[in-house]
């Protein structure tokens, strides 16, 4: 891989995907994926927080001493989350009503912290920003996929309420694929989250195997 950015982007979006490879951020990955739209919104909010905090940590990396780095990272992530929370409440209120309850939970998501520790703290500003952004987008892809599968099986719809999240012009995305009576309620409830996430991890490993790659052990690239 000659270009380091290609590597970072591929790692973040697919090969080292936060959810499907590293199994980090499991709490939002299961709690927020009752529909594709919810997963997508949560993913984007997380990506914004990750990109911003990676940028800040890389900027200050020479001033943060080893002994206090963890509290400083948490401080930075928490500040970014509060910032997103306040800004969304003030200027994207419809979206806030859907996601508001879950935004503060990004602080307790271990994926941003893991990337700060494993990457941003040792990297220059631009690669760190790209890594945070791509890891966040990979997280978005994972959450949207899990949400889509759960939503189709559980309620028979896909991207329901997407117009609330993205604006009225996205009404066309809201599909009903199966009649509501065919919905399997369990997929919307917590067991569905575990089942779908597990199956997705299996799918990713099978795809990687077929591509002839060694299976990477979960957590090999990050901290728990």
């Amino acid at each position: 891989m000659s270009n380091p950015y290609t590597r970072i982007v591929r790692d973040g979006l697919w090969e080292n995907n936060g959810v499907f490879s590293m199994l980090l951020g499991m709490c939002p990955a299961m709690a927020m994926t009752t529909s594709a739209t919810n997963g997508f919104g949560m993913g984007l909010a997380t990506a914004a927080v990750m990109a911003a905090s990676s940028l800040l940590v890389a900027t200050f990396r020479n001033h943060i001493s080893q002994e206090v780095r963890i509290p400083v990272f948490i401080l930075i992530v928490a500040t970014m989350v509060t910032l997103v929370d306040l800004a969304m409440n003030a200027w994207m209120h419809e979206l806030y009503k859907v996601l508001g309850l879950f935004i503060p939970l990004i602080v307790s998501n271990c994926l941003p912290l893991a990337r700060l520790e494993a990457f941003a703290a040792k990297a220059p500003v631009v690669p760190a920003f790209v890594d945070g952004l791509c890891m966040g987008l990979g997280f978005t892809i994972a959450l949207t996929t899990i949400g889509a599968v759960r939503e189709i099986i559980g309620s028979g719809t896909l991207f329901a309420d997407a117009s609330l999240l993205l604006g009225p012009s996205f009404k066309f995305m809201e599909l009903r694929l199966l009649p509501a009576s065919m919905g399997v309620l369990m997929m919307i409830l917590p067991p569905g989250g575990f089942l779908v996430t597990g199956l997705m991890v299996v799918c990713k490993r099978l795809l990687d195997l077929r591509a002839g790659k060694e299976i990477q052990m979960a957590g090999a690239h990050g901290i728990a």
Partner: protein
Amino acid sequence: MTLPSLRHGLILGAFCLGFGLVLAVIAQVTTDDIAARALEDRQNSLSQVLAGVPFDNNPATDTVLMENADHKEITVYRSRLKGEVTGVAYEIYGSGYAGEIKLMIGVDAAGQVLGVRALAHHETPGLGDKIEEKKGDWILRFTGLSLANPLPERWKVKKDGGEFDQFAGATITPRGVVNAVRGGLEFFAAHKARLTEGS
């Protein structure tokens, strides 16, 4: 002094101070907008539960603080036409399957329900959440009812011998809502004079 822990403490302190300042600025910038959004939300839910009576004031700002039967302070919003109270709206609370269900009820001056809407709840998606207006029209069933219609002993879900349908697979949620609405009407009956007094 070369105490390393002092240096670490200073670094941490500097970061806390810096980011604290950033947060203070952002909070300051967004305060007005957030308050405006909260007011819009309240006006929205008020216009839904007070639909059906004419009024020429702004109910969101015509408020009186009261204590409900559980000694909880609630804000009562009043709609007026030429100074006469035409309807009142306030929050009511039911106990659902997974915690409290917060609803807003509108009652006209004669004690008839104008409308009920769920504001916040934690009921099971796909079962109990049919109390939301966008997920079903069950909640609209209360419009026009009063303590005389149906009679108090019939203000229950069908399973308990009352008038109201429960949902397939969920009885506790509708029971909580029905009880809350009945409680809301009883609150109105108990405080009718104070709630409808002229300005």
